[in-house]
Each structure stands twice: as C-alpha cells, then as structure tokens.
C-alpha cells in the first residue's frame, strides 16, 4: 500500500498542471465565445 504515498502526490501534481493549463486557456479567451466558432465556416471570407 506504500505506493499511494508516491501516486497520490503525483496525481496532485497532474491536478496542478491541469488547473494551470485551464487558467491559461481561459485567460487567452478560449472560453469567451463558445457558439460562434462553430458557424464561422459559414461566414464569407474577408480579405
């Protein structure tokens, strides 16, 4: 059972990485508009 003393801290490390990645994604505006990118392909091109 001693393996959990290694695996649990490792999982928490992953958690921290995931949170940092999400914070970065949110700050760079990736979650600001979840509706229009899906229909963007239907827009006319602008030069």
């Amino acid at each position, binding site marked *: *059972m001693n393996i*959990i003393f290694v695996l649990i801290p490792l999982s928490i490390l992953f*958690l921290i990485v995931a*949170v940092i990645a999400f914070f970065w994604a949110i700050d760079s505006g990736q*979650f*600001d508009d979840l509706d229009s990118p899906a229909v963007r392909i239907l827009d006319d091109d602008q030069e």
Partner: protein
Amino acid sequence: MTTVSQYQLRRLSVANLERESEGGHATAEAILSVEGIHCGRCAVSISKILKGISGVNDVLVNVPVSQVNVSWFPDIVGLDSMLQALDQNGYPAQTLASGGNTELAAQQRRTALKRLLVAGLGMMQVMTFAVALYLEPSSVSGMATEQFLRLVSLMVATPVVFYAGAPFFVNAWHSLKRRQLDMDVPVALAIGIAYTASVASTFLDGEHVYFDSATMFVFLLSVARYFDLNARNNAQARVQAALDVLPATCYRMVKDDAVEIPIQELKTGDVVLVKPGDTIPGDGVLVLGAGEVDESLITGESRPIAKNVGDQVVAGSINCTGVIRVRVESVDHDTVFAAIQRMAFSAQATKPRVGRIADTVAGFFVLGVLVVALTTGLVWFILDPDRMLSVVLSVLVITCPCALSLAVPTSLIAATSALARKGLLLTESNGLETLSKVNHFVLDKTGTLTKGIPRVCDIKVSPASGLNEKDCLSIAASLEKDSGHPYSLAFSDIKIQGAAAAQEIHPGLGILGEIKGKQFRVGTANFAGGSDDHVLCDGVPTHATPIFLGDGKELIARIDLVDDLRTGAQAFVQTLRRNDISVSLASGDHSGIAVSIGRQLGVETILSRQTPEDKLSYIKSLQDKGLTVAMVGDGINDAPILSQADIGITFRNGTNLAQACSAMIVLSESLDPAREAFLISKRTMGTIKANILWAIAYNVITVPLAVSGHIAPWVAAAGMSFSSMFIVANASRLAFER
C-alpha cells in the same frame, strides 16, 4: 478603477445642460454597472446607501441587468465618493462605458469559470480520497495512511474553499455588515463549519473529516452562480443591442452634397438625406420628397405611414420608399425613441418585485442554527466538557444548511434546462418564481396572439369585370411585388402571370401599374375604383382588413386579408383559464378585430385602440389591486409595458428592446413554450417547497438526536451528504419530465 468615458462625459454634459435651465441647481446623471445585486433587497440597500450621501438626487436600481441609474448635484458631491460608498458595502461599481461593459462582463465570466473549474477538479479529487477514508484505512494499513489521506484532502480542499468559495464569504460578510441575513450567510457558515471542523479533526486526531461535503457544496453552488451570471450578462448584452437601433452614420446635406458623418456629430438643424431602407437618425420634419415610413418601432403600427413635406418623422423609423430629406429637430437623448427607452428602463427599475422564498427562510434558519449550537455547547460544557466538542460538531454538521441552500438553485437550473429544451429562454433568474405567482395575463394582439403576417382569406369579384378570382389575385400580386409593404407578404406565394410596368406607389393610398398594357390599381376603394360607394364595399367580415383592386374608374374585386392566430394561442388561453387566471387582451387595433380575436380565444376582458400609455396605466391599475401581472408582447412599443409587468414574455423575432425588457423569450413561432413555461413554473415551485420542507423536516428529526449526543459526527456528515443528494435528485426530476 473608474474611467469616465467620452460617451459618459457627453451624457453628463447633456444632463447638466437640461437640468440647469429648469431649476437653480445643476444635476448630473450616470448609469453604473454594479456587481452583487441579487434581489429586491439588494436594490433597497443600494438606494439606501446612495441616498444616505448628501447631494444625491435620485436613485433607480435595475435588478435584472445589475445597473443603477443615479442623478446627483455635482457641486455638492462627486461620483467618486458614491462609487467608494458602494464598494465599501460590498457592491463594487463602475460607470457604464460606451459600447457596453463587455470587457468587464468577460472578465467576470472568466473569473467565475476559473472558480468553477477549481471547485470541480478539487471536488473530484477530494471525493476519491473520501471514498478511501470511508473504508477506514487505519484498520488495514495503519494510522499513517489515514493521516496522509486527510492531509492531501486538506491540501486540495483549501484552494476550493478559499479561492472558489471566496465570493460566498465576501457576500456573507457584506450582508452581515448591512445587518441582513441573506442566503450567502448560511452558505458561508456551512462551508466554514465543514472546513474548520475538518481541519481541527485532521490535526487533533478527530473522528472524521468533512472535506468532501465542503467541496461538493462549493462546486454545486458555483455551478448555480455561474449560470446566474451568464443569464445576467446576456440580459445586459440585449439591453446594449436595444440601444443600437440607430445607424452608426448618416448623410448630412452640405450645399446639395450628401456627406457621410458619424451619428454623434449630427446636430439640431441639420438636414439629412435618408435613402430607402435606411433608418431615420433623428426626430425632425420632412423637407423634401415623399414616401412611406415604417414607424412600427415607435407606435407598433405595422402599416407604413404616408409622409409628405412638413410631416413629422421620428428617429428609429425606417424609410420604406423614395429618397427623402429631413430637417433634424432633436437628436440623441431628446428623441421619442430615447424617451421610450427611458420609460422602459425606469419601469423595470421601479416595478414591484416578488420576494424570493429562500431569502425569507434563510434568515430565520441561520438564527435558529446558531442559537441551537450555542445552547448545546453551553449545556454540554456543564454536563460533560469532554464530549462538548464532538456533540457541538455533530449539531453544526447536522444543521449545516447545505440542503436548504441547494433547494432553490438546483430546482431552478433543472427547470431552466427543461424550458430551454421546450424552446424558451429564461433571462431573469427569478423569472420562474414570479411566473408561478402570476394571477393575471395581459396579451398583446398583433404579432403575439396572431402571427403578424396577413393572409388572403376571401376574394369577391365584380361580375361586370369579366375576370376570375385567380386573375385578380395574380394582378394584385404583380402590383404588390417589391413594394415592401407588409400587405405584399399576403401575396408572396401567388404565381404572377406578368410583371407590372410603370409602377407607382402612392403613400397611404395604394399602388398603380400597367399589366399587358392595361392600368390597374390596388389599395383603398377610393384609390382603386374612384368611389367607396359600391356593392363590393359592403359586408366586410369584422376580423378582416379589405383591400381593393380596380382600374381607377371601377372596382374589380375586394380581397379580404386576415392575420391568423399563432399556433398554440388557443391552448395557451385555455390553460390559463383552467388555472383560474384572468386574461385580458390589449390591442392597438380597432375594436372589431380585437373583439373577434378575443371572443375566438375566450378572453374575458378585451381592450381595443390602446396606446402604450393606456396599456401601461392598465397594468399599473391591476398591480395596485394586488395582482401579479404577466405581459406577453413583441414590439418596441410594448417594451415599457413588458418592464412594468411583474414578468414580461416576448418572442425571438420580437424587437431587441422588447427582449431586453422581458424575463422570458419564446424561441419558436408557437405560443406552446409560454404555456409549458407556465406549467413548469408551477411544478418548479412545488419542487422547491418540497425541498425546503425536506431540509427542515430532516433537521427537526435529527437535531434533537444530535443535541442529546446520540449522533456521531461521521453519521451527521453522511446524513448531510444524503440529504443534499436527495434534494439534487428531486430537483433534477424537473429536467427530465416530459
């Protein structure tokens, strides 16, 4: 933090000028965007805070969009001290920048999303540790494992409680400072107790930790708050869109040349050129040209109005035919359109608000919990000081108002998602609660109970003309084609035999044109046939609007147009009547059409020829009688009425301003979603009441046991989780009901 934008400055100076000429003191006016407005009580405390400052003249709080309209005397007080006072009392405020506060809203949304994410990921992690802890690892692999699991739970739960849960603590603190007990107080108390007890347990080798309950609770409430925030931001965006009806630029005449200028530079006295299809930029007088103007924005009249030189035109109306020139007499805040907007928003800010169940219950509940916990502690301290801590802990955990605080938001989220599936968008978080209490519905006619699109229902042809019905329809269709007139919609699917040549539109009268060398006219009886004294003019059904076809000398045919009922209108009114709700129809149309539609639907009160002011005072009179009123409408002219009603319902294809003033938007062409919303609101309130009852009953049974020391803290924790889960499950039934 506060930047007064260029737009704001202009607003301020306009307001200053206006008032200075009226009285001695100059006043300034601004719209503030304020965070932390949740309910009617917040509105009351904000106006108390602001009115407590000397020099503040008037305060209007608009709850659904979290905005405050304030006017003050700049020589006595500055805007900064007002913002400071609001900030100190837990309502951070900013002046509304031009183009809306989209940046602020986006920032709020991002922060809320981060909090939600931390809560969600943290909760999942803590749950896995909690499962291990439930299995009592100390009996398998010794105390070290158990202590380790508790420590990592603490590590993960700490950011969840203090980062994701921060808003609850801040709100609770401010509400206590204002000497109020609103829902955030028990929430903060619950999170705080569960967390503190667990930390104590971890380091003092206590019986049990409750990190799982604390994190789950923070997560579930964060989800609810996140949806609430989104609904508010959407409402704000719609308000902003409603302000943007006027074009960005217009054409000013400079010595016979039309020069394009930004609308902000438009001044009183300018002459502007308005092309067909363009929006008129300011109120004014027509000085050159003639045409038809669509004023439906202001008056709700769907027929274009004929305008000739010297006639008044209003900003926001659309020029349908021909190039016209307008001498502008008032711009910006002085226009009729701006006045309607102000009327709509002040009606929204001042309307009576139905109190929320949860807030009323919460205050008493928290007081009760604290009193019981304190008394228990005292009694046990005298009886058996050793057991005091564990008993008080049990009592606090048992009475933890998690279940109570979850009762309302989970039910509302479930109901909102059910509504979205049925085609109805909820923009005001307490819309459902209000709708369930409505006992009088006021319905608009055109575009609400009817489709707002005319249809040919009957045609009568004069035998002398030698034409048949099909020919007559085809001729009328060719003439109406491309006229842009709403009546032309009735002919849009009729096959045309030949295109009309030399077409002329006579505003307010009709259209003439040549088909295969013969001249035809379609329009009023006088215009089409030279006289309205004809056998065809008799016997027009009350629900129809007639138009005539002729050759200028003799009438050929009469075509009756009707506006069909919206699908679901009949069922909607029937459902309301079955639930003992009174219904009235308020229409701008003449009495014949209004009465015929009203009778057909079984509406009891029918009001015809109503101006927006008439409708507004009618709704106020109903509210004065103590009724909770819902209004269903779609036009800009309906906006003040939608605001004044306790709840407004409008349509997706309704105007932006109408949508900004409504708590519910029907996304389909039919009225069925509105009927469903009414039924769901009743069911939702039932569920909420059942949930609150459950939360209270659970406490009534378990608290005496806990107080007498019969419940171990871990049983209390399990019970708390179970009762929360029961409430979440009960609420989610709403989402899956058909």
